[in-house]
């Protein structure tokens, strides 16, 4: 993204300071604060202040009040000495963390609100930038990414699927071991705090990632190619088994003949999926996957399953979870790219949670800003924009959002 205007930086910092002056008191420090590493980014700062440690919540809140950082992070890991250099910290374990970011999804709305510009030749386009520029073949772009209810809803759906897997399959306790946070921008974070999660090494975390994304799933082990399986018992529905049958059901029920052809299955399988769809669906509904075998050969089943599980898997980021030393945004602090809160959400409230109303930090006042260009945005139920080269007096939350996104400047 383009560089932030110096005046904007100053203005937002002042607003963040004002916010933290009264609200820092309410920011909950993470459990075992003395074992955590903290990291901060200031507005306009290029490098993160890392390896910071605090003795207690008060000291930490004092830091927020004094510096009003643009971004506040803490380590999922626990260290003997969080302030030491990486090699000397003494890793004691880490929470299991998941990051869901709608920026990694491919959504129709992104073609509406996101833009890119080729750094080399200036070519412009909407949505995600291509791998390389069509005109000049270079691969660096200036990206303008926005968000809307739709991206956030998609991210929430992935978070809900993730939580289901963590609770049902991994047995984590919804109350006490799991916490869900709105990331303050385009996604959600899930933290698992439990003794069994803490000790997992990188290899184990990678397997968990694969599990949640459904990577490496094979029809043979899902009872879908079994020669003599009967189906129906409770344990046969454990884990991905039950889920993959549901996945297949949903997929086959909804797929158009074109989609099925697109999968490049065996000829018999494609034909059967179209002509004997009802028989196949009935067998799946009765949890008799082995009956499906006569319609779909093993190899085709593999391909079909791979396509189908994507809908049941959760699109978590693979890097965040497997990084044992990752810093993650601290809940209930401000996000410098939106001016919203990174917000902890009680799991039971997740279904009704609306970040575009509930994560708004600056609820009072107005500000006059000049806006270069911005798509429509809905905050607290009110619609603003789209904007194009105009000067407007806006509610503070909207003004700060546009300033944080670097789409506007303060007019004083």
């Amino acid at each position: 993204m383009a560089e932030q205007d110096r005046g904007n930086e100053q203005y937002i910092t002042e607003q963040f300071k004002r916010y933290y002056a009264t609200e820092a008191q309410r920011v909950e420090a993470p459990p075992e604060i003395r074992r955590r590493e903290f990291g901060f980014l200031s507005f306009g700062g290029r490098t993160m202040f890392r390896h910071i440690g605090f003795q207690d919540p008060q000291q930490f809140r004092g830091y927020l009040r004094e510096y009003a950082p643009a971004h506040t992070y803490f380590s999922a890991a626990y260290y003997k000495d969080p302030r030491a250099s990486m090699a000397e910290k003494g890793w004691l374990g880490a929470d299991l963390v998941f990051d869901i970011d709608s920026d990694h999804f491919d959504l129709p709305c992104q073609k509406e609100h996101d833009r890119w510009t080729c750094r080399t030749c200036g070519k412009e386009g909407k949505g995600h930038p291509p791998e390389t520029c069509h005109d000049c073949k270079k691969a660096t772009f200036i990206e303008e990414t926005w968000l809307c209810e739709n991206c956030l809803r998609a991210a929430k759906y992935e978070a809900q699927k993730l939580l289901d897997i963590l609770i049902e399959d991994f047995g984590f306790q919804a109350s006490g071991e799991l916490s869900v946070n709105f990331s303050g921008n385009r996604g959600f974070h899930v933290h698992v705090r439990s003794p069994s999660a803490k000790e997992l090494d990188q290899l184990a975390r990678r397997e968990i990632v694969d599990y949640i994304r459904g990577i490496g799933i094979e029809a043979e082990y899902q009872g879908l190619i079994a020669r003599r399986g009967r189906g129906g018992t409770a344990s046969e529905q454990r884990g991905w088994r039950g889920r993959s049958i549901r996945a297949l059901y949903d997929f086959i029920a909804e797929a158009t003949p074109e989609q099925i052809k697109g999968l490049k299955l065996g000829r018999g399988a494609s034909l059967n999926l179209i002509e004997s769809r009802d028989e196949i669906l009935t067998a799946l509904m009765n949890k008799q996957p082995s009956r499906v075998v006569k319609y779909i050969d093993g190899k085709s089943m593999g391909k079909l399953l791979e396509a189908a599980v994507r809908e049941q898997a959760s699109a978590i980021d693979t890097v965040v979870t497997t990084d044992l030393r990752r810093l993650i945004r601290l809940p209930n602090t401000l996000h410098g790219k939106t001016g919203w809160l990174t917000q902890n959400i009680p799991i039971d409230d997740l279904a009704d949670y609306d970040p575009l109303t509930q994560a708004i930090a600056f609820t009072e006042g107005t500000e006059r800003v000049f806006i270069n260009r911005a798509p429509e945005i809905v905050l607290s139920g009110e619609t603003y924009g789209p904007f194009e080269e105009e000067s407007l007096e806006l509610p503070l939350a909207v003004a700060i959002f546009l300033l944080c996104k670097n789409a506007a400047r303060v007019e004083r």
Partner: protein
Amino acid sequence: MISDREAAKYPFLNDAVTYVETLGLTLENLVDPSYTGVLERGERRVSQAILSGEATVELEDTLTELLSFPVANMFITAMAEEYLFRRYALSEAARAHELLKDEAEERIAKLARLEFGWDLRLVQERVGEKLYRFEAHFKDYLKNAASFREPEWKLVNRLIRNGYVLLTKRDASRLLQEEIQRRIGSLVSKRRRISLPDPLRIRVNNLQKLFDENRSRLTGQALPTKLLTEALPPCIRHAFQGLMAGRRASHMERFALTSFLINAGMGIDDIVKLFASITDFDEQFTRYQIEHIAGLRGSRTRYTPPTCSTLKTHRVCYEPDRLCERIKHPLSYYRIKVRDYQRE
């Protein structure tokens, strides 16, 4: 108290180790002719590790079988060959697995819980053709199965509910084999100087000779200094070609490629040149990153490329071919291919 027979079968168990300690054997004792059988068996355990990779079970004389284990450990530690630490641990663990797989479920469960701290329950559930007899907490499962590459061990292909993974008896003993291998590995891989009396020294020298004769067969030849592009695994080839075309590469892809090239023996200057010529990265930055990965900077550890399963997770694995099915690591792929090319 552990019986002689149990201790001989599983000499790495805490109780067996304690039992041997109470016997108070010293190095001088071992030189006594009455222990020749123990020394011989100890030497054979090591030579079996070198030659076949699996120690035999010899329970006719339980005390000799038991005492030869710490003796063999001592030989291995004295040889101080990094590679042998692993191979020996594997060989002894395979021996234990031979015995374990025929034990009663209760015995297996007890061993898993008491010796290795597993959270494990006995169950009886038939699913299709399989009879599941245990369920283990996923953390204990993953600690041991996460490095297996067969699809049946992937958690996603397992029956799991509420944190517990169903296991057959065969599964459980295979997973325990991993625990055992790790324990034996840590028993022998201590770096310490041992000065042995002559009769023992001679045996160690014999073993050393045996290992030297087999070294190249076991550890594989050195790689050529010039990169053999024909031998690159599909993922690395793809990353390489992508880079050439100026395609945006993920961090993991870049890392995999760089660390692969370094470990495949390409010089740092050459890699810098290669990268600088085709990306818009400025040279200083590229060099810094490469030197970091090569272990010339920062933590001074030289990074090895990620394993295939890591690359699969991060979607760097690309159109794996037949050879890929046999390997766990892109470097092994390269090694095998290089060897094939050199033969031709």
